[in-house]
């Protein structure tokens, strides 16, 4: 039965009696003091109300859980898709860019070189697309229930973490195969992943908010993702550029992420220090502006979607 249960905790089985907590119903932060909700028309830029988001953290968890759980339902290959997508792309890239075009790969075997970039890239691009479509595909929720709307795009980006983990295991396998050992810089990997997440969420928030009113966004996002990939050194290396262009290239936050992954895991020579700084600044401003833009349009969601 445990396979059916939500991640991380146990549901009571039917026959079990559930022990009542001794304090009764008045436990938990939400019940401590009857909150006063003031409903007023808002004007212009609204506050982000991050505390509200924190109150609903369990809902965030359930949304992530739902998206993970449902993503590969009714597919034959199931979660194997999480691996197949980057892996097959890597094969195609290796053939065309690695073999035929002989794109230089900083002395790293080309398959490893491109796959190490594809893993964070796929996390970003799926997260971006999921976040952007999150409002429209949950339209009936928006129209029926109140909850902090920010939970939807956030949870959809986070749900991609499971795919990332699966694809990452394959990356480790490939590193063993090619006899490449990660450098000490691997400790920066979580930070790089966070950078990808922040970027995906930042852009995703902009697009999600716009998509509520303009379904055009739904058609645009796949193109954005595709163009963005070629604007990111996934199939090639940013070392093809000289300074200061290389640092400026960091204006695309995914440049920092991808180069960072190669640097931390494969020991690529191209330490992306200044790139990362530029990338982080851009990603953060995308996130903050995206959150405010989202919040500004949020009040119209239920009426427009």
């Amino acid at each position, binding site marked *: 039965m445990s396979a059916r249960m939500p991640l991380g905790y146990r549901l009571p089985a039917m026959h079990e*009696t559930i022990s009542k907590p001794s304090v009764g119903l008045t436990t938990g932060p939400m019940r401590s003091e009857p909150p006063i909700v*003031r409903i007023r*028309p808002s004007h212009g830029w609204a506050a982000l109300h991050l505390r509200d988001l924190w109150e609903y953290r*369990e809902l965030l968890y359930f949304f992530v859980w*739902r998206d993970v759980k449902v993503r590969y339902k009714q597919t034959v290959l199931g979660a194997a898709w999480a691996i197949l997508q980057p892996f097959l792309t890597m094969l195609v890239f290796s053939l065309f860019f690695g073999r035929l075009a002989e794109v230089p790969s900083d002395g790293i075997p080309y398959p490893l070189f491109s796959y190490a970039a594809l893993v964070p890239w796929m996390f970003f691009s799926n997260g971006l697309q999921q976040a952007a479509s999150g409002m429209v595909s949950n339209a009936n929720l928006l129209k029926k229930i109140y909850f902090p709307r920010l939970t939807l795009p956030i949870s959809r980006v986070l749900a991609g973490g499971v795919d990332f983990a699966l694809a990452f295991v394959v990356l480790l396998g490939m590193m063993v195969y090619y006899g490449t050992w990660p450098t000490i810089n691997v400790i920066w990997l979580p930070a790089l992943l966070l950078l990808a997440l922040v970027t995906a969420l930042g852009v995703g928030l902009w697009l999600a908010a716009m998509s509520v009113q303009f379904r055009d966004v739904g058609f645009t996002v796949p193109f954005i993702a595709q163009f963005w990939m070629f604007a990111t050194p996934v199939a090639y290396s940013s070392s093809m550029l000289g300074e200061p262009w290389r640092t400026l290239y960091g204006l695309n936050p995914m440049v920092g992420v991808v180069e960072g992954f190669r640097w931390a895991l494969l020991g690529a020579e191209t330490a992306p220090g200044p790139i990362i700084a530029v990338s982080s600044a851009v990603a953060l401003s995308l996130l903050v502006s995206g959150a405010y833009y989202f919040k500004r349009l949020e009040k119209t969601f239920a009426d427009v979607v």
Partner: protein
Amino acid sequence: MSASAIRVDSLGKRYFIGSANAPSDSVRDVIVNTVAKPVRRAVQLLRGRATAAADLTEAFWALRDVSFDVGHGEVVGIVGRNGAGKSTLLKILSRITEPDEGGADIHGRVGSLLEVGTGFHPELTGRENIFLNGAIMGMRRAEIERKFGEIVEFSEVARFIDTPVKHYSSGMYLRLAFAVAAHLEPEIMLVDEVLAVGDAQFQRKCLGKMGSVAREQGRTILFVSHNMAAVTQLCQRAVWLADGCVKRIGPATQVVSEYLQAGTTGHATWMNPAPPAAGLEVQFTSAQVLDTAGRPTLLTDFDRPFKIDVNYKVLMPTRDLALCCQVLDTQGNLVFETIDTDRPELRGQVREVGTYRAQVEVAAPLLKPGRYNVTLVSFIEHIKIIQRHEGVLTFDVSEVGYKLNPGRMGIVAPVLNWEYGRAN
């Protein structure tokens, strides 16, 4: 703690609707619009009008200047026709959408039941959906775990709890959905028409649950319904909304009866619009519900008898003619039928050509409080049905005189004579 749980103060909500003068039905119009619309939108966007109203010019106030208070532990019904603003009001109070004017203060945690089963995912099992749905409605995980058994029991789907809900029947789906909703424990509950789900028996169960929640736990409930019987049973007070404004606030039975009187004038009496038709043996001409004083009425009290008055024309002499009144409840259950040939001397007779008037008195107490429809049928015994007029009259039986338990089972509620004494 303030005296009122909900204070609504001159609330207004505006929607933009399309201007009615541009139906584009020619191919040329469609093409021109396809080209012109994005340009027009882009211009408006640049002017800073990036709202949903970019194309929509006419404003429509779904709610205007609505004010009322709801005390702690009070159950208040909201009645009104479709489009009167009831659902908009609940949407604003549950923070799904924002008002454009005025405001509301709500003291306490709000749970809204605007549609049961929102957020159910078909691929997930019943068990998983209980948790997901509970979380969406604002329940804590620990809270859901604690009530899990109770929810499953209430939903009556225990056997299928580990089956994906896409394999559920619609009834099972709704029962599970309502079960989760019924176990929410906010201080204030906003309920919209949820009682319109499921079969009659489950509806009664839900109604009972809401009643007990309100009575025993002192929960504040704002309740929108078209089921007037439910409103009068559950609510102390009612707010009547008409065209986005408050028309009346007061004791539920009073407001409901006024609303019904006003709302359904068309059903007080019925005139057959069809002209006399050739080949028919008999034709109904009109019908009405009369109170004890013989006045047409829409509302009768539980403990007061009333009459159904039927006028008809016999167009050719007919043997074994029978006229039937069927009384149906709002769920379409045939409560009873009564036939004029119940009167023995009418049996086996030839009814001559002419205009007739018949009245039948319905005894009280018999019909439970609620809304009923009358269907008229004319037929020749054992031969054929001549005509059938569905739901020509609508009337309500009020709570007045209803001293039985609101949860009384059965389609009718006759108050019968019990004799008792010591057996020796």
